[in-house]
């Protein structure tokens, strides 16, 4: 098992360098001299610009610049925000926990709702329950998450005033006001988990049906077990295995989806930070977000494979 984990980690290393290389190339392709963006340009003399360029290492050859930047990134130094003149790592430390909270809750809700829905659909296959869940499954995929968020705000927050319109906390409330915090979470978490719930219910329905057609399920039924026992003891465990694989895609979706949803609900997380940074061309922040986001994804892929290796020993030897 240890060797399997190690191999999986080593496999991820070239991918990580690929990601940093892409990020860096995109950064270098950016129109506009970073020095001019940083210092406003206009009033600088040519020799001042040259001095600044050498001070920031921008006069070095591109490969050297890449290695230097990579060295900084590996030690957690993402440089300074152009706009806020603060270390980017500091800003990420402030924003990341908020996004993780949102994403974790959305993931939990996705599994808690999506899995039972899928099993239910398989259990009552062909009935109206199945039909309803399948329709919801397709619809949940097709709804633009940000539009769902807008509708939530428009109907539940603006018209019926049931939920706050955005943010994490009502201004003036105590930072530990749990009900207030929860009320702020409902909208973004729902909007973020919608597609995942649809995805999991479809996936789970197919897996359950697959397992239900196995011989051992027939045996279980033949020895007179009740359908619910067959379902919970014999079927569910095996049907859940492939869902571990879907977890990777789901986390990738959450990382991307959070950016849009945080914008809709004015949630002060990585997404909003990225959005603001992208609009104001604050490249160091954007690059840092890509590197951090990709690292989270890479780690979650490794965790997924390890989890898969634990539940299915054949994978380890492949």
């Amino acid at each position, binding site marked *: 098992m240890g060797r399997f984990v190690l191999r999986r980690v080593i496999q991820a290393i070239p*991918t990580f360098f690929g*990601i940093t290389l892409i990020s860096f190339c995109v950064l270098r392709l950016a129109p506009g001299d970073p020095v001019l963006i940083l210092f406003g340009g206009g009033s600088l003399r040519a020799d001042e610009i040259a001095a600044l360029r050498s001070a920031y290492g921008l006069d070095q050859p591109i490969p050297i610049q890449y290695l230097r930047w990579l060295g900084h990134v590996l030690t957690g130094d993402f440089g300074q925000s152009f706009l806020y003149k603060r270390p980017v790592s500091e800003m990420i430390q402030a924003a990341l926990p908020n996004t993780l909270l949102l994403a974790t809750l959305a993931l939990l809700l996705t599994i808690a709702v999506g899995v039972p829905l899928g099993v239910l659909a398989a259990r009552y296959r*062909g009935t109206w329950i199945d039909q309803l869940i399948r329709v919801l499954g397709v619809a949940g*995929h097709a709804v*633009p998450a*940000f539009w769902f968020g807008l509708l939530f705000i428009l109907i539940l927050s*603006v018209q019926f005033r049931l939920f706050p319109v955005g943010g994490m906390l009502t201004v003036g409330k105590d930072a530990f006001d749990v009900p207030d915090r929860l009320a702020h979470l409902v909208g973004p978490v729902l909007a973020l988990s919608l597609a995942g719930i649809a995805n999991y219910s479809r996936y789970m329905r197919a897996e359950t049906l697959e397992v239900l057609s196995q011989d051992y399920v027939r045996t279980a039924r033949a020895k007179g077990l009740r359908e619910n026992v067959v379902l919970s003891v014999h079927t569910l465990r095996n049907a859940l295995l492939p869902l571990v694989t879907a977890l990777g895609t789901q986390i990738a979706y959450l990382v991307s989806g959070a*950016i849009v949803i945080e914008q809709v609900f004015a949630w002060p997380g990585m997404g909003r930070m990225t959005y603001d940074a992208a609009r104001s061309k604050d490249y160091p922040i*954007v690059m840092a977000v890509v590197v951090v986001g990709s690292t989270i994804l890479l780690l979650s892929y490794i965790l997924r494979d390890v989890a898969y290796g634990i539940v299915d020993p054949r994978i380890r030897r492949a």
Partner: protein
Amino acid sequence: MAAEAIPLGARPVADAAPARRPTAGIWTNALARLRRDRLTLVAASILLAMILLAAAADVLANNLFQYGFTRQDLLNGYQKPTWSQPAFWLGSDDLGRSEIVRLLYGARVSLSVGIGAAVINLTIGLVLGLTAGFLRGWFDDLVQFVISTLNSIPSIPLLLIVSVLFQPGPVTLVLILGGLLWPNASLFVRGQTLSLREREFVAAGRVAGASNARIIVRHLLPNVLPLVFVLTAIDVGTLILIESALSFLGLGISPPTPSWGNMLTRAAQDLSRGPWLVYAPGAAIFLTVLCLYLVGDGLRDALDPRITRSE
């Protein structure tokens, strides 16, 4: 007698074999199944209607609504939907522009971006998936490395950066989305190719001396095409969703060109004054994507002979 003798290599089989019988092939069967699938047919007709409406946007705007998509009328800002004036069937936005006309032009943008990018996606995905899956070896490793790298970068941040850098019009956006989002299609095609290449007809082709290129084009391609059709329908839907999200963030299609996504940006700025401005573009995205997914599902069922529609 000698004249009757067929020289070796003159394709005797072609003459000896009976003329191609009109057996029910996979496409004929699929069509027959599709014809019974009412839900898919409804979805396909809605899509067709949307494409026609989008294509007729100019004609409709000039004749029926008599209102250009950039025409402003500040005195009629936030006009509620009304039957009395065709241009305001769906109300007007903050600048007094006709919502329904902009919706029609938005359909043009959203549909063509989705379709255009999907064509690029599937071309790249098909070529790489087929060649990597068939050739295996270092080429496959290389392609898989590129795919796993691209898949490890969260797509929205990546698109965010790229669209900030290039400030896309519709054409650049098509190229960006098409050039970055092909891994999924490629993985599906590769998977299919991996199992196809072990089949007897591929071995037979090889024994008969067919080159790799010929096996890929004549034997593998026709077998993955059904899959590609399914993927296209679903991919167009996903791309429309992504385009609308990017445009909503102000990083896709930028005003004054209307797209369903950027129409929602304006609507979101003042939710309570014009709720109808939120409903219409979002519903348009939802309906289009829903129909595309339904058509994709329907195609998959129709093209997969193993599935019985008794479920």
